[in-house]
């Protein structure tokens, strides 16, 4: 969550008891959190890629891609193929369900908003996108 300390603070800050030191602290938490999470997320991928590369690099030039490809496919055993199909099928099913859900949100949310606004004209919104996703500028 990015919180930029700003000298020209809006008057609402005083009402909420927010001072520059609080904003600076929030900004520090924000920066540390974002960097730690990026490090964990992509650090793991980088380690896997590096170890894979080191294992293969020592044998470079001795085998063709075709040799390795055939052996790789040999590892994909027929007995396990049901598991692969179920796994990939599950992912595809999840994706389709997600799309269906987002389509429903896009279609139904404006109606709820409109009806609620008739009762409460000052109704405030969460600010997600029309499909209920994180706004691109809010993403880490």
């Amino acid at each position, binding site marked *: *969550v*990015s*919180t*930029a300390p*700003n000298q020209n603070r*809006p008057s*609402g800050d005083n009402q*909420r*008891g*927010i001072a520059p*030191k*609080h*904003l600076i*602290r*929030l900004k*520090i*938490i*924000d920066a*540390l*959190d974002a960097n*730690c*999470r990026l490090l*964990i*997320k992509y650090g*793991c*991928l980088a380690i*896997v*890629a590096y170890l*894979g590369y080191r*294992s*293969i690099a020592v*044998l470079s030039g*001795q*085998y063709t891609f075709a*040799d*390795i490809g055939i*052996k*790789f496919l*040999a*590892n*994909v055993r027929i007995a396990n193929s049901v598991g692969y199909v179920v*796994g990939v099928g599950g*992912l595809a099913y*999840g994706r389709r369900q997600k799309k269906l859900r987002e389509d429903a949100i896009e279609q139904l949310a404006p109606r709820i908003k409109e009806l*609620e606004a008739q*009762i*409460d004209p*000052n109704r*405030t*919104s*969460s*600010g*997600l996108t029309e499909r*209920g996703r*994180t*706004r691109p*500028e*809010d*993403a*880490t």
Partner: protein
Amino acid sequence: MNSAQQIATVLYSVVGLAALWFVAASWCAYKTEKLRQDIFHLRADLFDYAATGAVTFYNPSYRRLRTILNSMIRFAHEVSFIRVMISVLLEKFRPVMRELPNFVVHVDADRELSDEAREKMKSIHNSLMLLLVWKIMTTSLAAWPITVGSFLLHVLKHGLPKQTEVEQEKKAIRRVPAPAQQLLSNRRVKYHIQLIEQQAIETRQRKLSMAAAAAS
């Protein structure tokens, strides 16, 4: 096993680990959307309650609670165990955020509210905190050993939480499992969850100000 076979096995393992990484990322994304949906339910619950006339839509406590819920919906993807840990460590060594007013103090001071409305709002707020704790607990492997360890330490130092407090948490929301309710009876955990709320509110406020400035 010859060397070509070894390379193939390594590649096979790398692909497997990458698939595992993808599944873990998808799980976290699902939990974020689940959290958002649950908070949407809380917001609808609050709106329906206000629509009965038990509290006005202009009441400051109502507006504040709605702002908290909106902020948490928007920044649900930022709720993480790492953020809580960073906040705990920073506040332990250099406390800054303690003087900020929290929602419960605000509601208790609101004389416009009836006792029933006050309890209802506290219950919705409590449910929100339980949902945040549960999201953190179900998206971090490190969260379990560290939290269980610190909970045991807390029990050794201060004894078990009072049964009445735990019962109150249970009444607040039944969809969230008992471990989250036990955890939230720890005041320090509650305080740091409120800090996450505060961060979300401030960030949303900044973004709205920036959007308004850009539009004018």
